[in-house]
């Protein structure tokens, strides 16, 4: 006799080991899994007689494993073990189809008896069927998940049907609800000259509406065979398995039929073949229903995904804009609030330094340090105010090439110190567009300045200007690309660079407002900015601006100024 295969699932290693050893000793083939998701993987690639699973596990719970296995292969028996038994859980587990429920700490003997009982029951249930044959059937369900088209699905079902029944040819008939007759058909034969038969579909329809798999043997049911096959050759036996959506309402829920004929051995089909065909039909009906649902679901999920993506995108933008706008407002207020006490501190230090008037270098150094910190704090405020001012624009016609030229000029010194070469490439020169000259200059300058900072050992700063038309609206778009060959950034790093105060620079070197200002100004310009970066390779900022500002934006602009 074949060894019974048992899968033990428990997140506690001790229990896994204990069961593995005891059950292996008793002659079972045992595998273990440390959590639900591992277990599901194993279930999908192996056939087990039974599962022993813990209930409370991280990720996928025992109950979920139970539900899942019953879907994949209802003949697998499941025993649940748990340290926290509740009546509700027990009832639910049994409802879903668990064989039994064992509480921790358990008695090894008790477990062994239950396993034995459980396997007995399985044997009784499957007395007609070999586990190996079942395997083919359950492979079907698994494989169907992977089928790409309806055709490949039916091919799969028919192949399995022929395999388990030993037939040479067979067909799947699909019921068309609209015409109330059979619609699509798929046929398959094991080899080229296998006998095929043409069925009378009206008679077939009448038969399958009975809802039961029928084994039709020529000697016994000659009349029916004659009706089903109005002309031509007659096989010695036929299996007709209806595909029904709901076994309680066969007539209304008919989905189609699987018919196989002519055993290769020349024998008639047996009761065992009938049983297998009926299991197969059940599975096929489920697959069919699932695939219909799946198709619809897929569409819905697709649509849902799209709208969720959009939502996230706008949400992110909103958050960013909101964040920046509120920081802008705050900045203005905070700046003054801080400057007042700062003024007092400065006055105070200066007063103390005059009355102390010491030669003590330590005291003088201390005073110098305080003064330096005050001026640093004040510089932060200056930046903050710049930031809050970024909210007011003055849109005019301007030449973007000229601005980039100016910025290149402004950055020349800094670039020279870092041995950075500046390379420019303009598709059109001049290229006129509408925007706020001083604001955009600040945008490009901030980005270029970061780029040079990112190349302390030299490199190339490339400034490209191109023009294109927007894919969806057809409007003219000016694209400015600012690239460097510097240190680059990781993905997580990239996500944060537009956040106010995010900086990786040394204290005093950067306030982390540069790119927030960039973002805010471009936001006001209705422009897009994004960054492409690779660590140790370099970074590219891409800015897309509408060449002509919409009336709306200009109005918005007017309001801001007024």
């Amino acid at each position, binding site marked *: 006799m074949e060894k019974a295969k048992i899968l033990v699932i428990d997140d506690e290693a001790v229990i896994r080991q204990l069961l593995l050893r005891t059950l292996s000793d008793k002659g079972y083939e045992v595998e273990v899994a440390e959590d639900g998701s591992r277990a599901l993987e194993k279930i999908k690639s192996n056939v087990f007689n039974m599962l022993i699973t813990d209930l409370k596990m991280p990720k996928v719970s025992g109950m979920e494993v139970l539900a899942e296995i019953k879907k994949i292969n209802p003949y697998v028996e499941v025993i649940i073990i748990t340290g926290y038994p509740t009546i509700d859980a027990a009832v639910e587990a049994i409802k879903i189809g668990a064989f039994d429920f064992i509480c921790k700490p358990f008695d090894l003997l008790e477990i062994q008896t239950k396993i034995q009982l459980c396997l007995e029951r399985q044997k009784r249930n499957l007395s007609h069927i070999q586990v190996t044959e079942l395997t083919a059937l359950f492979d079907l369900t698994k494989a169907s998940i992977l089928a790409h088209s309806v055709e490949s699905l039916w091919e799969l079902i028919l192949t399995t049907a022929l395999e388990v029944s030993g037939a040479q040819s067979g067909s799947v008939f699909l019921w068309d609800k609209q015409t109330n007759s059979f619609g699509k058909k798929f046929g398959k034969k094991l080899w080229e000259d296998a006998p095929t038969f043409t069925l009378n579909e009206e008679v077939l329809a009448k038969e399958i509406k009975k809802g039961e798999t029928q084994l039709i043997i020529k000697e016994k049911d000659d009349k029916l065979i004659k009706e089903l096959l109005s002309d031509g050759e007659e096989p010695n036996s036929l299996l007709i398995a209806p595909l029904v959506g709901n076994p309680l309402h066969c007539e209304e829920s008919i989905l189609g039929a699987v018919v196989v004929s002519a055993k290769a051995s020349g024998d008639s089909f047996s009761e065992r073949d009938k049983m297998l065909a009926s299991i197969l039909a059940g599975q096929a009906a489920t697959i069919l229903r699932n695939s219909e649902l799946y198709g619809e679901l897929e569409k819905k999920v697709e649509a849902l995904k799209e709208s969720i993506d959009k939502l996230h995108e706008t949400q992110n933008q909103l958050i960013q804009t909101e964040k920046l706008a509120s920081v802008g407002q705050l900045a*203005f207020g905070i*700046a*003054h*609030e*801080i*400057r*007042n006490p*700062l*003024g*007092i*501190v*400065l*006055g*105070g230090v*200066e*007063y103390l330094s*005059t*009355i102390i008037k010491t030669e003590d270098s330590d005291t003088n150094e201390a005073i110098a340090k305080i*003064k330096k910190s*005050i001026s640093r704090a*004040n510089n932060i405020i200056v930046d903050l*105010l710049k930031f809050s001012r970024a909210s007011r624009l003055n849109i005019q016609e301007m030449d973007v090439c000229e601005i980039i030229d100016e910025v290149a000029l402004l950055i020349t010194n800094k670039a020279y110190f870092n041995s950075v070469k500046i390379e420019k490439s303009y598709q059109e020169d001049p290229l006129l567009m509408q925007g706020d000259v001083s604001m955009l200059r600040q945008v490009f300058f901030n980005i270029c300045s970061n780029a040079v900072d990112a190349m302390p050992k030299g490199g190339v700063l490339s400034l490209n200007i191109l023009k294109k038309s927007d894919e969806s609206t057809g409007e003219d778009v000016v694209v400015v690309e600012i690239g460097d060959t510097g240190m680059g950034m990781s993905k997580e790093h990239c996500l944060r660079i537009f956040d106010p105060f995010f900086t990786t620079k040394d204290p005093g070197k950067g306030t982390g407002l540069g790119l927030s200002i960039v973002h805010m100004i471009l936001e006001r310009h209705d422009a897009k900015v994004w960054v492409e970066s690779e660590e140790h390779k370099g970074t590219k900022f891409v800015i897309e601006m509408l060449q002509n500002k919409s009336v709306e934006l200009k109005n918005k602009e007017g309001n801001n100024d007024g």
Partner: protein
Amino acid sequence: MMAKGTILLIDDEEDFCFFVKRNLERTGRFSVIYATDPDQGINLAKRNSPEIILLDITMPKKDGLQVLAQLKKDKKTMAIPIMMLTAVEDDQSKLTAARCYCEDYIIKPVTFEALQDKIHEVLSRQGK
């Protein structure tokens, strides 16, 4: 040697006044009077005819720019040079102050040295 000039400081921050007074007086060239209440400041200006007025903008009872306008309208005080000494830095306030003939606009925090320079500058423009 010049006579000690009087400087009037109008600022709601008592502590700020405390240090400005001490720093300026330590030079021996000025005597400083101050008011933390704008209206009281206006009265002091009228009564003491200071040589220069240092004026804050954000004050709870009255905006410094209003005080400026009021002082510049009053015959008794219109000739006194006024310097804004404030934490508020925006173009609108600067413009308003300039339109009201304020002499200078200084942003806090300011070093004593810079403040002193500005005061001298204003005074020398006045021919003092």
